[in-house]
């Protein structure tokens, strides 16, 4: 709080120097980890995005659901698309539509968009989370690694039904 000495440009103490060097090396390590994982890691943030009108996305999803429907649960269609195809999931107040059935070890292009407000795609367990924004078709290329029943919950506030907004992804062997 006091006025500093007239000349405060002094050399560093050796402890400060050592710490500074170590901290800087750590910062470089943090920086490098991201591109390293981008190239070598299996879990990366999707980047493919298209602009889309909500009505258009709804149409495409309905057509997709009708084409690959294999059943129903709680009034929602269960849709089992073939591997390596485009899969569509709508977030809307207050459900993730439709229910998906995927195969373990197979790859799918999952298209995410919203018909109304922003929603949060949260795959549980797994804990993979993506932002879903109306007007944007966000494409995630996914490969389920374990069979089982997964829930999709919403983790972006979307008004009063937010805590009722769920979905489901079934992964078969």
């Amino acid at each position, binding site marked *: 709080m006091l006025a500093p000495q007239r000349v405060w440009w002094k050399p560093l103490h050796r*402890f400060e120097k050592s710490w500074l060097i170590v901290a800087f090396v750590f910062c470089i390590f943090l920086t490098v980890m991201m591109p390293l994982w981008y190239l070598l890691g299996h879990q990366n*943030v999707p980047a493919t995005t298209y602009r889309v009108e909500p009505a258009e996305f709804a149409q495409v999803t309905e057509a997709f659901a009708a084409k690959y429907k294999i059943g129903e649960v709680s009034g929602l269609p269960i849709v089992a698309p073939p591997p390596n195809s485009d899969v569509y999931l709508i977030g809307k107040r207050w*459900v993730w539509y439709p229910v998906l059935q995927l195969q373990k070890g197979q790859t799918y292009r999952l298209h995410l968009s919203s018909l109304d407000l*922003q929603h949060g795609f949260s795959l549980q367990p797994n804990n993979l989370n993506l*932002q879903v924004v109306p007007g944007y078709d966000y494409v995630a290329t996914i490969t389920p*690694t374990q069979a089982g029943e997964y*829930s999709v919950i919403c983790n*972006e506030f979307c008004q009063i039904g937010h805590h009722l907004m769920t979905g489901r992804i079934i992964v078969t062997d």
Partner: protein
Amino acid sequence: MAVTALPRAIPAFQFRTCPATTLKVDVNAERLIIVNAVAAVVSLALGGLGALLLALTRWQAIHLLPPDWFYRILTAHGFDMLVAWIVFFEIAGLYFGGAILLNARLILPKLGWFSFILMAAGTVLVNVIVLLGQADVMFTAYVPLKAHPLFYLGVILFAVGALIAVGLFFATITVAKIERRYEGSVPLVTYGLIAAAIIAVYTLLSGAIAFVPAFFWSLGILPELDPGFFRNIFWSFGHPAQQINLAAMVSVWYALAALTVGAVPLNEKLSRLAFVLYILFINLGSAHHLLTDPGPSFLWKATNTSYAMYLAVLGSMIHAFSIPGAIEVAQRRKGFTRGAFEWLRKGPWREPGFSSLVISMILFGWVGGVTGVTIGTEQINLLAHNTLRIPGHFHATVVSGTTLAFMGLTYYLIPLIFRKELKLKKLASWQPYLFGVGMLLVSIGMIGSGLQGAPRRQWDITFTNAPLSATLPGATQITLAIMGIGALIAIAGGVMYLLVVLTSVFTGPRVEAKRLTLVMAQANPLVDDVIPNMNKEVHGSKLQPRGALILVFAFLAFFMAYYLFNWWLLGRAWIIR
């Protein structure tokens, strides 16, 4: 006849001389500090009441509020704490650092009052409109969520008021330099506040760019507002707002270290450089809010979230050694040289400024900083986005860190600025410990819940009555209970703070401060020249800060472990690109 230049008259200003520090205290600056500090504490109380109701609701076993009121009060709590409490306190700090610490006069005080009125009006407007149920949009108000126009107007008024006060701060310092009220460079605390103020300009302008179109959109004048654009610009405002808090908090740390143990910076050059790193790079980090958004590429996300090769993080790491190091050297000068940690063991732990400083630093660094850099890593964010890990992180930084530091400083403002004797000193001594422990449990509870997938901003993690059932691990009930219990402890700590502050300010006569320390009996190290060996060289002597060095390396080891743990967690998830 030769004409010699007449000495230019320096404008006089109304001041009093502080008996404890010999500083000239401009009376207008003092009044404005008081009024902004009062508004800050009122906002804290409001936000704190909200915190109590919210914690007792997210503690699923209690589930106090119904859903609509939960979401409503969550919106108000966000604004009252992140915007009102923090910024009112910082504006008070600007008057302190810009005028009083420089023995200078505050220019255009009427403008200061105008700015205060705008900020107060904005705060009232936002709270009223939210509590009326017209703005259930969260503090982030993500388009297409639409609030009543008065919500946006309230935020805009607050931001404009704050911007005026920031401008006044710069002008005051400039005039102080011209009028030669101080010699050489400004004190480090003022330097840190200047860094905060520069970041504030960028922040508030971004806020205007985000909220002005949103205001017109809410009125129906602007037909469409792109949600992606709003998110980007909102966070150009929202995160730098937190960086202001960071720079201000670090300034307060240096101030508390000076006040309580007479610490002076180990190396002014390094500490100032650290603040410059903040100014240059810290706003890039706002991109960490958009890491799992559709649109931007890996290169954009990774570059920005790294704060330019983590250089802004380096700034924090510099302070992480410099401040404990300065405290250690000051303590060693007093004779506490036994072993690596006698300086710490024999610290003034009953002095609230000291305990709040240390606890704030530990919680900010070890919990807030480590978790923040980790979840701000592009790919790791996939695990954390919109889960309770996010509030777990920022409660450690803004509450355990900044708020606790500000609380500690308040205890000194009461005798120095309000000129009242601090009452309930025992309560003040214990308060930082209670608050710190409570907030540590809150962060642990939230982060533990988020690691298991619990979402933030959500009323019911059992998803009862949802068309498709969903369950989170049963242990989330335990971690949420830990959060709830921690919240009750922290709120008790908050109530203690309010009790001490209100009792001191409103009861008792006006008393001139005679010394700087509150609880300790000894004379104040800064002013009374009681530090022996003050000029003894630190290099190669018993005065070297080895204890602080051990502490920062331990911190780094913990940082590394937590960070690598998260990559391991990510590796266990589905393959995704």
